[in-house]
């Protein structure tokens, strides 16, 4: 009996002696980098109130698989771990710690949601893991780059977007009375504040603003209050589910304002849903902005980038709806990530990744609108700072004016 026990103890001791040094022996490469793979990871809402954004991760993954089929980056295959956080920041924190500490990812990539990214930013900057191409337009990603050097955004900032809407409304309507529905967090407040800035002293002004909580079930009461304000312009700064509800409720109340819809919901598939099979006339004339090529737009029917998009989606994301423009976003960010990784050369490090991410000059992303470039540099920490205003007209988006560009953010 005692002998057997000592054998067991010796075996455990031997096993520890063998495995522990191996566990602590550091190799030259950064975590997540092996001769055959680069492991990155990020959270995405696969369930919950914002599950429609899951397409962003799916689109990016499809692009990585395509690159992998062509030999990957420097013979390394990109492995993209997508973890569900149900759009719940508390879950994001746990999932991201898991990605960093257990899965040992090279970088946290494309994590979606303003609140979710705010919840993990301090942690990632302390452990010096890149928080690459945050899928949120909050202004803080670019504005606070000095304080958070390991974090970088991607899409145009909400501050730039709100400013453009404000300027447009000021031009298009004399003395407009604007009502705003916004999500009660940094994202909604960013848009609202910059909208007011854009309206300036034009005589048009915000007469009512109603917040909603991301956990609430509908926005009916908010829309009713906004209608009661007598506004003739209705700004919907909301995620897709709530944006569609806003159209439906406003229509039922017989309200007929000019609608300005934020870019995160301003996609053709959402407009089709909101139009309730043509019954809801309120969607007609909606103003929004975009940087992406719309897969349903006949203009891009023969476009090389969009042909590639459709082929890749059919091949690497079976069953995915090609008309869902969030897939295009995913591929666009996937494309930039691959070019960034290529620039790291044979021995990628996290430090090099961030320094290259702050010196991007990419003018030909095939999934972005022609003329929209991805650029960062000294003092410029906002990758995309351009966009195209567009109007929903008879079942599709038509561009309004040329590309807008934001200097500051």
């Amino acid at each position, binding site marked *: 009996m005692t002998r057997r026990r000592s054998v067991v103890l010796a075996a455990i001791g031997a096993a520890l002696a063998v495995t522990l040094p191996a566990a602590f022996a550091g190799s030259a490469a950064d975590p997540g980098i092996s001769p055959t793979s680069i492991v990155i990871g990020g959270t*995405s809402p696969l369930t919950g109130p914002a599950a429609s954004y899951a397409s962003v991760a799916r689109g990016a993954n499809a692009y990585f698989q395509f690159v992998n089929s062509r030999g990957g980056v420097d013979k390394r295959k990109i492995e993209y771990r997508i973890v569900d956080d149900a759009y719940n920041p508390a879950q994001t924190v746990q999932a991201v710690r898991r990605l960093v500490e257990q899965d040992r990812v090279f970088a946290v990539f494309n994590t979606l949601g303003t609140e979710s990214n705010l919840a993990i930013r301090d*942690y990632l900057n302390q452990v010096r893991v890149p928080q690459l191409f945050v899928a949120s337009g909050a202004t803080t990603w670019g504005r606070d780059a000095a304080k958070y050097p390991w974090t970088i955004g991607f899409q145009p900032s909400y501050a730039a977007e709100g400013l453009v809407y404000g300027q447009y409304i000021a031009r298009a309507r004399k003395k407009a009375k604007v009502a705003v529905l916004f999500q009660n967090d940094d994202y909604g407040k960013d848009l609202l504040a910059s909208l007011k800035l854009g309206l300036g002293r034009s005589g048009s002004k915000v007469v009512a603003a109603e917040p909603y909580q991301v956990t609430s079930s509908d926005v009916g009461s908010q829309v009713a209050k906004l209608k009661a304000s007598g506004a003739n312009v209705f700004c919907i700064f909301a995620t897709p589910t709530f944006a569609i509800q806003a159209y439906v409720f406003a229509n039922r109340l017989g309200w007929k304002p000019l609608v300005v819809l934020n870019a995160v919901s301003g996609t053709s598939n959402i407009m089709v849903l909101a139009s309730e099979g043509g019954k809801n006339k309120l969607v007609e004339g909606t103003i929004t902005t975009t940087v992406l090529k719309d897969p349903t737009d006949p203009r891009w029917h023969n476009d090389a980038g969009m042909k590639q998009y459709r082929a890749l989606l059919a091949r690497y994301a079976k069953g995915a709806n090609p008309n869902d423009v969030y897939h295009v976003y995913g591929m666009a960010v996937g494309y930039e990530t691959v070019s960034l990784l290529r620039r790291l050369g044979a021995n990628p490090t996290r430090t090099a990744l961030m320094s290259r991410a702050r010196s991007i000059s990419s003018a030909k992303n095939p999934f972005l609108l022609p003329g929209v470039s991805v650029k960062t540099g000294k003092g410029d920490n906002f990758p995309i700072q351009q966009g195209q205003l567009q109007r929903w007209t008879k079942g599709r988006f038509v561009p309004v004016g040329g590309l807008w560009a934001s200097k500051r953010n």
Partner: protein
Amino acid sequence: MTPREQRIFGFVVFAAFAVFVLVLPQFISDFRARDYAYVGIYLIALLGLNILTGYTGQISLGHGAFMAIGGYTTAILMAGNEQFGGPIPSGVQDIWTLPVAGLVAGLVGLAFGLPALRLSGLYLALATFAVAVAMPSTVKRFEEYTGGGQGIQLFGLPELTGSNAVASGEDFSAPATFELLGLTFTQNDWMYYLAWSIALVAFAGAWLILRGRTGRAFRAVRDSETAAVSSGVSLARYKTLAFGISAAYAGVAGGLFAIASAFVNPDTFPIALSIFLLVGIVVGGLGGLSGLVVGAIFVAFLPLWAQGQDLGSVLPDSVIQGDTISIPILGDFLFKGTSAPGGPAIVYGIVLILLMFVLPNGVGGLFRRIGQLITNRRYSRAK
């Protein structure tokens, strides 16, 4: 087994389990220790819920709300709420907030126990559910105290034990260590030991409460309120007491949850959490304590397994092909979260249904049956 033997056997198993808990971190990866810390936290909450539901027969669908009260108490004491315009300054070290978290949640539980006296069965379940539903909005309503929807960030605060930990070497994302009481901990190991030492004390506490007079009164209330009253058990006293104790347990668990996540916001304690806790005690076995460890493992890990995060270590390779799991008859499921919206929920549901078929009385019921088998064999041999 005679009751005396049973008690000795119980002590031995508990001591063995405590030793197991003590040495476990030596055998698992640093991050795994954090996963198991959450198991300890859920165990505390499940112990409390089982005192209320399993022993006293009062169904609560709102225990996540009591966890939220504890979690916010801890977070506000640590970070203060002056940053939101509230009156409370920061500065309480994390572990000292836990007794307060338990106390505050316990008092709220006692207060809730009073109206609960008039409700029973499904009506009580609905009333507690309403608390869980109302909790996120209530937290947002008092923004200057709670930070509203944005929540309270605890990461990096000096009040968080181990926030001064430094990584050795080049890789800053490697486990960071710090000194405490002459011992060296990684942050994850520290969290593990904190959660489990409280969980073991909570376990012993629950056992002490339930073994004597109070426990008997609880069970009497559960089995028949009329019979309990006619035997001189005060319904009002014991129902509110059960609510109070149970909520205090949940409060401590919530406080630990906030420390472990280093972040709280209204969604940290969603309605689903209350449901998961109830699932946890059903899986663990109503009216038993030891099975709850398995219930806690279930609550902490099944959502991850269902998402395929850890599936590789659980299922044989033949079942996993690339990104899909093949389940006979039901077909293939995508996993690794990639492109299967709803997939995790389906896996979760299937596992739960199977478990209830195989173990209708939960894991605790299984333990009891094994114990009975041993007793029967011994008695039949004695004849």
